[in-house]
């Protein structure tokens, strides 16, 4: 019901062309063998479920089939911007530090 700008196609398209791909930038434990069960459980199952601004992944399934990052407000559905995963990660890290 909203429009998303695909950073790979450089075009703004209807939501119908995209699929939701979950929360963005979930870090995999650096040493999976040494991770405790609680850490591994967090990585696999625990999600932020934010009310407000939220970094998430969308895939342009009907277009370029690429996954990219979207910063969206889960209350108002407003979209702050869309980036390729690499570009978005810098912004995400800067924001999460602040």
């Amino acid at each position, binding site marked *: 019901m909203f429009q998303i700008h695909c950073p*790979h*196609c*450089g*075009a703004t398209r209807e939501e119908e*062309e995209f699929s939701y791909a979950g929360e963005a930038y979930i870090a995999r434990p650096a040493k999976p063998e040494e991770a405790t069960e609680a850490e591994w459980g967090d990585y696999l199952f625990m999600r932020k479920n934010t009310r407000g601004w939220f970094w998430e992944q969308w895939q342009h399934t009907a*277009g*370029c089939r690429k996954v990219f990052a979207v910063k969206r407000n889960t209350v108002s559905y407003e979209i702050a911007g869309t980036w390729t995963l690499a570009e978005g990660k810098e912004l995400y890290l800067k924001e999460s530090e602040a």
Partner: protein
Amino acid sequence: MANFQPYLQSPLVNFNLPAQTVPADASQKVRANELPLLGYIVLRGELADAAVAQAITKATGLAVPAASRFSSGEAGVLIWQSPDECLLVTARAAVPALLAACADAFAGLFAQAVDNSGGLTTVYLSGVEHVTLLRHLGVYDFESVEAGDAVSTVLGKAGALVCRVDGDGVFLVIRRSFADYLWLLITKAAIPYRFAVAKLPSAGKSPFLRLVDAGSPAKRPVAA
């Protein structure tokens, strides 16, 4: 299995389009017909990389298209799909030679050419109301599709590539597995527009239609 004789047939073979085909006339506001059994080659490789772009041009003789555009020439039509993927639509008979040329040109590069001729087909949709019909089927702003554009979007529940060569009509590149569904969807939605399965216009210089003449008969034995 000694008696098994593989043969080519169009994904729309059960609609028996050749038998339904009538001459095109102005009263048909939406016309459609299939361009059966073309060749489709998927080219993967970072298009922004000059070496990959040059290799594609060397193998196919076609310029690498800009985003959501296509380029055309002797070998066929090269359609942009994503920053690292193009689709080459060509005559079925030209596929083996082009695959070999691509394999040659891609040597040493992180790029690949894959034959997907069995997976896709093309439908030509024309007539004065063909854009209206597309608006029945999909959410994209189809009026903004200009000559040279290749838009990948959804029609009904299935994905399709919408390519416009000129104002007369669009070429829909669709998946084999959804061809049945999309054809039924098109024919049903087009009933109010005096739909007809019309004879394809003469090829002339049209980059897509030209490929049909160089293509294959509807049913042809192939070497096993």
